[in-house]
């Protein structure tokens, strides 16, 4: 028994993994542009020139959400976010979803089943999650009107939208 345990731990020790840099709370998020996966109006194919520019959301509270169709909790988070977006969009709140699917058709199929009305952009190269420091799927960054990261939301479980709604309501009130 102990003999096999020794081999087991030895095998474990023989390998190691790397570290990633991440955007921290209070830091200003980078500005970015990217192609739309879906236009803001649901269902219409964006023209090839259509690009989202984060500068257009200047001075707003923004929820930057990294997701993919294969991520289990994203099936919970996208519909929840869509509700929150519709509730607060008139008060200076925006959601930008960044899709990280390898094949964007998988993402389109997902959105066909669970439609959202907020902008979804597509980042096949995975540059944005690198810069933001995404550590799991999904990960979201809630930015205040100054563009500072105020909350990092990793994963998404049913019921978590309650706390998120409070947080957003509070950030909207900030000058």
């Amino acid at each position: 028994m102990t003999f096999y345990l020794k081999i087991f731990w030895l095998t474990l020790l023989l390998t190691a993994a790397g570290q990633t840099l991440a955007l921290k709370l209070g830091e200003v998020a980078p500005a970015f542009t990217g192609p739309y996966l879906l236009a803001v109006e649901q269902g219409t194919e964006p023209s090839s020139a259509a690009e989202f520019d984060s500068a257009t959301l200047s001075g707003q509270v923004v929820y930057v959400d990294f997701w993919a169709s294969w991520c289990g909790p994203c099936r919970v988070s996208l519909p929840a976010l869509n509700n929150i977006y519709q509730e607060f969009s008139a008060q200076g709140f925006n959601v930008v979803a960044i899709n990280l699917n390898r094949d964007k058709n998988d993402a389109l199929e997902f959105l066909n089943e669970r439609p959202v009305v907020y902008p979804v952009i597509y980042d096949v190269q995975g540059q944005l999650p690198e810069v933001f420091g995404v550590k799991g799927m999904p990960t979201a960054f809630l930015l205040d009107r100054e563009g500072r990261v105020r909350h990092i939301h990793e994963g998404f479980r049913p019921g978590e939208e309650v706390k998120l709604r409070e947080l957003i309501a509070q950030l909207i009130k900030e000058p």
Partner: protein
Amino acid sequence: MAPAPEVVVVAVTDQKKTSQTLLALGAAALAIPGIVTKAEAAAPVAEAALDYKFSAYREADLDSDKLAGGSASRFEIDSHLFRYVSPLGSDMDVAVDFAFEKMSGASPWFVLPGNNGPVQVMSGASIEEERTDLQVSLNRFVGKQLTVSALAGLSTENDYDAVNVGASVDYEIPDSQRTLSAGFGYSDDSLEPTDGRLLPDRVDTAEKTSFNMYVAATQIINARTVLQGSLSYASHDGFLSDPYKKFWVVDQSNALMDSRPDQREPLSLEFKLRHFVPATDSALHFDYRYFEDDWDIASHTTEMAWYQNLANGWQLVPSFRYYTQTQAYFYAPYFLSERGDGYGSSDYRLSPYGAISFRLKLSKDWGPVAANLEWESYRASADYSLDKVDVENPALVDFDILTFGVHVKL
């Protein structure tokens, strides 16, 4: 959001028309929940689902030249399996498994020496039995890295009752590609063999307890490959003999009751590999297990499966399994004289042999509903053994299983 000094530009990608085939494949990939590798933040299942399976298990008749008495037709099992999986609150999920099985047929009794090798005496009357099994497991996801699971189960048959409990933890080391797991299981079985009170040499009641524990490490090798190594240990105590089997002792011209040590400690070392092949949209499974115990049994099990995704939600899975084992030290087809320690068994399951098994599974996914049909063919023989076998046990089993299943998203 305020303007920031640094601007990150996402590469503009081509805007091809959506292919219907790829859309369908995407749907297929999402539809069947399973115990997914910890590639995403550990989370409860997102949707509730119900599974039903019916399976027909049929053992081949014993060859007439190997039969010395009793019925040539062997076991048949019809199984109804139900599985319900659901999220529970915000950080838990639950799985309930229920099985109902009807078994009938004759089983090997003891082995006699024959002119052309040993021959089998089968039990005469066809045994009719029912088995029900209920297992409930609960997973709790603590934070993003830790999953704690607990399970409990209950199993009853005409001649035995068993209760079992177990627990396990999975811990994903932060900022790594490695998950460590450990767990244990405990089961307590009570046997009350049929006709135990009528037959003087058959045990009336008996008890058996089993304890097992394991440690495992899972390593993501690259974006397409994941590997798991595990080590497990078990300890079985109590009545480990088969109350329905006997062994023949030549110098006594008598069959004695199957008798085994009341302790057994198996150890196994297992490797599992999963590899995805994007070019063909398929996944390769490779499993290997080395097993040894203090009854001198050692075995190798190798399993390979190829999950081929096809258009329109179809999937075809051919697989192959190879198994080979050495015999228990107190096993013989029959005994010239009784062993000094009093142990003895002619059970084919403790004999040296090998087995090959082929499986083919076809499934179709419509999104909210999926169905599958699976066939397995298992053949055991001394010829398939890795080590040379001098005398083959006449009761080695060949069987086929046909399974039909439906999966419904709730």
